[in-house]
């Protein structure tokens, strides 16, 4: 059979009417020539020789610019695409400095160990070219004990991760005296991954790092790199506490790429169910591989990776017996040897298809392939570009194909391609002064070095924290200094990535006197999943919860065989404590501020398998959980909503549907997990609220008695005590969010609501979708299309063909 080239396959796609019906964007990203600058004159001759030997006769413009700024002592944040030579922007200054001052030190931070390994390899190659006296080492959980001392003394460049810096380096800084007393550069790559809780923690780890460096008389320069986000300079400044020079124009050349957004067809319009993304992924991947085109597929979970790998192996085998070995899975947990074999087979073209998880988008050395298929939106624009960057050789065209799942985020992106292509509206938000996070790191800092009078740490008043910790017996003041006075080691108790380490263990006590731990549930979901009399399911075994002991963090369960499952009924009550800012936008009053959220599980329903009949209720007595956090909210005039052609109940359904859409869009813009924030529909003054919890169908009416007058309000709040910094941004971009929600809902082809727009129709009611759209129009004061909106969300399509396809699909 004659093999097709990638160009030919792409043009076949274009002329395939049935394929194009599902295409929402078909973009040609043209090749671009590079812009170059000569190697700087001040470059050490040996370093120049090494660079030239490695083929760098010139630098890209952005690299040269970064080097000049660093040379002049500026902290720099670099925002350029994948494969634009970012690492040289920090490796050159570090090597140059090490040649000028052999004792000089640098610290590199990467979010994962795998990335640190990649960097070690790259830096090591350059350093070896310089004769090998400049040493670099990774320092993380895998570093052998006997190597650690040598690394602390000798390594010019220590490559580590935030967790290790936090718990392994800073608390032992005296052992790292050599590093800190000569620390000239700190490099933070993948800056955009440090957002939300993790970023807020890291900002405090950096405060501690700079404090320790000051103790040794150093104020290192920071060189940061980030994927494209809307606020790189602001984010770097907030994370590091310094002002940064921003470089965001890439001088690197670019190969041509075809980018396709594919939305699988709707198969059940009633429920808004689409064809699984796996089906087209399988078909297209097999077509590409059948023509010898090397393809990488990214899937969201380990399970999907395994399923897809099997599909592709079966498909290849069917086409040609023995061909199943041209397909390989590649995910975390594979042994290094296996990985190396797969990498080698890819380079040798023995493997044509490789399937990986999103988590492995970075830090795998598999070279560059021809085509990339993303099964599901990777969750952020930055991540999507990074994954698609896996395909693309220097000279040839490459293909990137995004196949949408039915989640709101996937649907929004594919149905609104401009959001993706017109520059990033994604924001990295952190709140380093979140009290819980701040107080944790003040403890760590006090352990590392006693606090002195007049010192500051963060934006809050340090003396108050010190007094508080002294009152708790954790610190002790003597002569104007605060000393650590506890036996334990604070960094061990504080994880940077998790919100709350307290889990509830599920213990099977079916056997008399037996105690078998079968699962762990995080503290928050324990209330809804392992309350007393709940049916808890693990691997399709049913367990009845006999007892939930919150003090001991244990749930005792017994194996049962029943024909129902349970669904917790919760209520969320939200009260405004303090409004920080208010504005009138259209007909809505928009605010952000501090709120008190109370959540309580009040009971459960027994629901019969298959028929979903409600076969009983039970009551649950669990303590109410309260949390103070920050929120953004907007209130609509009841009188105006009453003029809309819906009943009160339908209007409330519409508000709930709107809240669902807004919640998802907010998470998307903030690159946050959907669980990092939560939503609630309630009365502005807290007299009334909609019972509305995860998994539980909301009662369509208001609280105990339905008041005639109330102020309907949608709250989107940070699901972390004290808030994580999302709300003021949401407040600022309120109008864009509503406009985006309108487009998400209006472009969704489902009949009356689905998980991709306002939520499943059975949860929100049959008129919610229409009502939600009317509510948005009321809120904005005009149909959203005519309103002026920022370019990122409102730019019309440049590709007429795609636009027409989309309209056809919708009408």
């Amino acid at each position, binding site marked *: 059979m004659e093999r097709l080239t990638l160009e030919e396959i792409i043009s076949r796609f274009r002329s395939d009417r049935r394929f194009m019906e599902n295409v929402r964007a078909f973009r040609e990203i043209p090749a671009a020539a590079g812009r170059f600058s000569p190697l700087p004159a001040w470059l050490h001759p040996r370093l120049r020789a090494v660079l030239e030997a490695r083929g760098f006769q010139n630098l890209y413009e952005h690299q040269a610019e970064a080097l000049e700024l660093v040379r002049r002592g500026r902290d720099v944040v670099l925002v350029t695409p994948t494969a634009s030579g970012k690492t040289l922007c920090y490796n050159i200054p570090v090597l140059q400095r090490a040649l000028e001052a052999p004792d000089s030190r640098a610290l590199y931070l990467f979010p994962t160990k795998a990335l640190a390994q990649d960097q070690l390899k790259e830096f090591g190659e350059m350093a070896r070219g310089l004769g090998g006296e400049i040493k670099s080492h990774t320092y993380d959980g895998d570093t052998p004990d006997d190597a650690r001392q040598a690394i602390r003394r000798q390594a010019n460049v220590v490559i580590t991760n935030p967790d290790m810096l936090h718990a392994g380096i800073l608390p032992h800084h005296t052992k790292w*005296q050599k590093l800190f007393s000569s620390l000239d550069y700190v490099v933070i790559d993948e800056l955009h991954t440090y957002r939300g809780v993790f970023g807020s923690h890291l900002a405090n780890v950096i405060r501690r790092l700079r404090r320790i460096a000051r103790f040794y008389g150093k104020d290192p320069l920071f060189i940061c790199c980030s994927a494209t986000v809307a606020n790189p300079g602001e984010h770097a400044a907030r994370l590091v506490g310094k002002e940064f020079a921003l470089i965001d124009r890439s001088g690197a050349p670019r190969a041509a790429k075809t980018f396709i957004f594919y939305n699988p067809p709707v198969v059940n319009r009633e429920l808004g169910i689409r064809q699984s993304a796996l089906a087209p992924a399988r078909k297209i991947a097999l077509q590409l591989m059948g023509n010898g085109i090397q393809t990488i597929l990214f899937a969201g979970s380990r399970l999907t990776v395994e399923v897809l790998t099997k599909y592709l192996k079966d498909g290849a085998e069917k086409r040609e017996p023995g061909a199943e070995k041209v397909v390989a899975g590649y995910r975390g947990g594979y042994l290094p040897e296996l990985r190396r074999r797969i990498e080698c087979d890819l380079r040798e073209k023995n493997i044509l298809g490789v399937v990986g998880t999103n988590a492995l988008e970075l830090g795998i050395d598999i070279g560059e392939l021809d085509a990339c298929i993303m099964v599901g939106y990777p969750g952020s624009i930055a991540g999507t570009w990074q994954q698609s960057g896996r395909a693309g050789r220097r000279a040839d065209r490459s293909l990137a194909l995004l196949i949408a799942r039915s989640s709101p985020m996937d649907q929004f992106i594919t149905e609104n391609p401009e959001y993706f292509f017109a520059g990033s509206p994604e924001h990295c938000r952190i709140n380093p002064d979140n009290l819980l996070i701040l107080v944790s790191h003040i403890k760590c800092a006090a352990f590392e070095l006693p606090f002195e009078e007049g010192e500051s740490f963060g934006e809050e008043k340090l003396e108050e924290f010190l007094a508080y910790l002294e009152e708790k017996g954790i610190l002790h003041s003597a002569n104007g200094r605060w000393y*650590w006075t506890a036996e334990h*080691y604070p960094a061990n108790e504080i994880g940077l990535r998790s919100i709350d380490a307290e889990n509830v263990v599920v213990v099977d006590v079916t056997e008399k006197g037996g105690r078998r731990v079968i699962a762990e549930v995080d503290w928050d979901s324990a209330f809804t999943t392992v309350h007393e009399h709940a049916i808890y399911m693990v691997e399709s075994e049913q367990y009845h919860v006999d007892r939930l002991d919150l003090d001991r963090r244990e749930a005792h369960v017994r194996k049962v065989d029943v024909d129902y499952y349970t669904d917790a009924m919760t209520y969320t009550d939200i009260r405004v404590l303090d409004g920080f800012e208010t504005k009138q936008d259209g007909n809505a009053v928009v605010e952000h501020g501090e709120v008190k959220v109370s959540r309580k599980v009040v009971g459960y329903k027994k629901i019969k398998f298959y028929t979903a009949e409600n076969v009983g209720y039970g009551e649950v007595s669990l303590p109410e959980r309260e949390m103070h956090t920050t929120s953004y909210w907007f209130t609509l005039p009841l009188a105006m909503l009453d003029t809309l052609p819906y009943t009160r109940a339908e209007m409330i359904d519409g508000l709930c549907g709107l809240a669902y859409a807004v919640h998802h869009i907010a998470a998307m813009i903030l690159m946050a997990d959907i669980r990092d924030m939560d939503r609630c529909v309630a009365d502005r003054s807290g007299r009334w609220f909609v019972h509305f919890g995860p998994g539980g169908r909301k009662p369509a009416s208001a609280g105990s008695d339905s008041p005639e007058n109330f102020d309907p309000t949608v709250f989107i709040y940070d699901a972390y005590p*004290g808030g994580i910094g999302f709300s003021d941004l949401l407040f600022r971009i309120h109008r864009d969010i509503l406009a985006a929600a309108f487009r998400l809902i209006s472009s969704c082809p489902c009949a009356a609501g689905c998980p991709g727009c306002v939520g499943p129709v059975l949860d929100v009611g049959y008129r919610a979708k229409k009502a939600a759209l009317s509510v948005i129009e009321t809120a904005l004061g005009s149909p959203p299309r005519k309103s002026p909106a920022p370019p990122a969300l409102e730019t019309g399509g440049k590709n007429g063909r795609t636009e027409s396809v989309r309209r056809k699909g919708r009408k």
Partner: protein
Amino acid sequence: MSIGDKLRRIRGEGGAGRKEQPPQAREEEGRSKDERIDDLRRRIREILERRPSGPAAARKSGIPRGALPGEEVRTRRGSVLVNSSRILRNDFHGKRRICETAMPMDRIGVLAGRSVFSPFRCEDALFLDTETTGLSGGTGTFPFLVGLGWFEGGNFVVNQIFARDFDEEAALLTCLSDVARERKFLVTFNGRAFDLNLLATRYILNRIDNPLSGMPHLDLLFPSRRLLGHRLENSRLATLEKMVLGVRRDYDVPSSEIPQRYFDWLRSGNAGLMTDVLEHNRMDVATMAVLVGHLCDLFGSADGFAAAADGSDLLALARMCIDRGEKFTAERLLADLIAAGPGPLGTDAGTELSLLYKRSGRWAEAAGIWETMAGRDPGCLFALVELAKWHEHKTKNFRTAEALVAKALDNLPGDDIDWREALLYRLARIQRKMGCNQNGVNREE
């Protein structure tokens, strides 16, 4: 609102519950009496914990100062309390008199595994043990008490430097520097992993040169574990002193309670909390002084055994000497053990010594030991095989070699296939050589 209130509020730690009476009252009815009492207890405890205890207040009012033993010493970096005491030469500490501790520097070198001690005298040793605010390491652990000991005219002096508060740390370290300058080497128990690391950290934090870095150091933990640990449940100093040195403590603060005692002292100024800790530390320092004496005495004298030494300790010492290249001492110790008569210790000692001889090419002496071993235990496989090798390769007495291997085969447990194969192989080779020899051809391997 205070930071504490804010933190409690955002965590939802009941702050709001108190304001809103109705929901709590409703809850109240549903709970048992016990639960309510528990709750009350908890709340009372919380209130008590919150009451300002005035950490330094009590102390500043002057209650405890006089009650702690010791005197105030002024240094360049402030004042610190030093408690000086002395164990007279003939005083017993456990089974030993303090003056019995002699420290021959060659033995100290073997114990430490380094030979840098030879120019020193017993009086140059500085014994050091710290008490700290935690055992976790890291920069937040504070050594509030440094116990120091040295020999002076046959007596043993213990000086304890005590920081009454964190702000006396610089003075404590300066005072330690002054003492250390007078001595030439350090003796600790687990100082390599703990005390010296910690002090190095504290010197850095206080920007004072560390006088201890570079001082030769004998860490008693390692030789103690090697020489005595094999017959003890663990090698902690408390175990060694009880089981080996016969030291009794009437009352002793458990080490694990010491950090909390210091924190309580800071808050309450109750000197009683600290006197126990000072005594604990003084005992530790004194125990190190007799322990080093005990370890040195294991080497014995040219005349024979150390008095009352455990044979297995001597075997362990002999093995350590072999590792450290101290052949003569090892030979003497092993010969004494063999001479002490048959038994497992004698066999082990014979094995070690004969191999030592063999490695040095002293075949006749080695063979003598094997003969003795085979004489004591005719089934001793090791001795039979070694003798067979000796006769096969050196004396060329193949017939004797053959008989020895045959005897070894007879004594071999039935299931030891590897040994059997090796022996059969050896036997065949010897028989082959015997045949060659009869033909007048001497073909050696």
